[in-house]
């Protein structure tokens, strides 16, 4: 469809008068702009290694496995995250919960995330009924080998400890409100 007259906005060609034709005043104006930037710099550069970026709390970085008030892993090994995961990077082996854990039947014996396969979409976080898995704002995820980048349960729990200690808690999916499975048994 050709553009109609109404959708086309005609812009007047700026008139070049004597002032502009003399060039020098225009160049002086341009130089003034240039010099103004030198003496009034608006540098937005982040000096990265010395200066850490302040990421928004909903940033999707390294995963963590949350602990509950008693320091136990909050996960109930329901496999919802592993099912939701489009990259199939979560591997859980469930086991019967120890008898003294009255609030649940199962717990994850192993909980492994391949951080190299993960696409950091945050679907596991959304799927989790007990807010056990979360993506943190840690972004500088590096390693020297593939094995190193496969995070097991201990490593994921230590990420939780680290983020709690440094106060970089992510935004919780339920904003502090856990699902029914996470409520203590009555």
């Amino acid at each position: 469809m050709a553009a109609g007259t109404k959708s086309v906005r005609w812009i007047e060609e700026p008139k070049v008068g004597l002032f502009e034709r003399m060039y020098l005043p225009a160049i002086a104006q341009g130089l003034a702009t240039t010099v103004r930037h030198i003496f009034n710099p608006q540098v937005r550069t982040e000096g990265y290694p010395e200066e850490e970026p302040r990421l928004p709390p909903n940033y999707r970085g390294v995963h963590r496995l949350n602990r509950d008030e008693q320091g136990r892993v909050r996960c109930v090994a329901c496999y919802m995250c592993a099912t939701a995961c489009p990259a199939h990077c979560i591997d859980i082996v469930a086991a019967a919960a120890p008898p003294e854990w009255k609030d649940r039947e199962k717990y994850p014996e192993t909980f492994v995330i391949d951080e190299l396969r993960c696409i950091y979409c945050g679907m596991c976080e959304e799927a989790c009924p007990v807010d056990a898995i979360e993506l943190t704002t840690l972004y500088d995820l590096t390693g020297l080998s593939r094995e190193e980048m496969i995070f097991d349960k201990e490593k994921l729990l230590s990420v939780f400890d680290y983020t709690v200690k440094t106060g970089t808690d992510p935004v919780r999916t339920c904003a502090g409100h856990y699902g029914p499975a996470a409520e203590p048994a009555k």
Partner: protein
Amino acid sequence: MTDFDRTYTILLIVIVFAVIMGTVTYLTLAERKVSAWVQDRLGPNRVGPGGLLQPIVDGIKFFFKEDIIPKHVDRVFYFIAPGVGVATALLAFSIVPFGPSKPPPGPTPVTADRPVEIAVEQHRVDMEAYRSERTFAIAPGLDIGILFAFALGSLVVYGIILGGWSSNSKYSLLGSLRSSAQIISYEIPLGMSVLGVFLFVGSVNLEKILDYQVHHGWFVLYQPLAFLLFMVSVFAECNRLPFDLPEAEQELVGGFHTEYGSMKLGLMLMVDYIHMITTSFFMAILFFGGWHFPGLTDIGGTGGLVLKFVILALKVFVFLMLYLLVRWTIPRFKFDQLMGLAWQVMIPLAMINLLCVMAVKEFGLSPWMLTATSVITFVAAAVIATRERSTVVSRPVREPVEA
């Protein structure tokens, strides 16, 4: 032309070479820093405090990089080209009085009461006195003076042409062709703009031009138009923006030095910066009185000497900064605009300016007349350009066709 004290001259050459190279090195840093500040960036800040050691590291990198020579190049000229460029650029500095200077004595005229023998003797005494003075130029009192610099300035294009042609690559060749056309075109307004100065002084010797300004005031006051033309021409001669078509990165990869690497590339890049320093000196000396500053000329002793050095250095610094700032102010010309500016604007203006100088000299008018004529010529050119343009531009069809 005077004899040289060999030791002193060699010492001077070494010092001047070292200072120029040091300035070039730090000019690259200044260029990067200034461009960063202008664009609200930080610029190089990793090596040394505030990035101060960056150019040294760059130099080391240039020296230790693998020297890749493409198979298709003409090896002889490929190797000669950077050397020709740097050598000619450096040679132009040999006539620059970079410190306080005394003009060499002119010819002693033979008159009725001064026969030949006495005149010759008088001249010999004058020359003796001149030679005993400490001069701060490698080749002091050179009578062809600035013409030597212009001659070398046109030789610099050989470095570029040789480099571009021997590289055997289309981008290099295009860059060097543009460069030759540009430098040859801008040499004409360059020479014509300073002719007015020569007419006033009656000499092309730089020390004499300087001395004239010490006594009669800076030439920029009398001939602002000539200064403007000179400045624009040297910007073009240095291949600086807005005239950097020979190395237009967006079109020609790297221009004439596309096929160069390691220190040969470093030399090629250095030519521009050496040129910037030399031409800044010329602008300061020809039009801004060199080491002269009103009220500060008569201070003698070591303090006065240092002061004069500082004044000249400051003037040169201002021009160098102008080079850097203009780069980020004016966008590059198209090639037809570049040629149009030289042939249709600057050469006629230089010619009119020269005619005005001739008229002023012929009829013994006040030199301030020239300031007026400069301004009038400039504004008149703008008026003509305004009228010209309004007839040329064809308006586009206003109404789009309805579908």
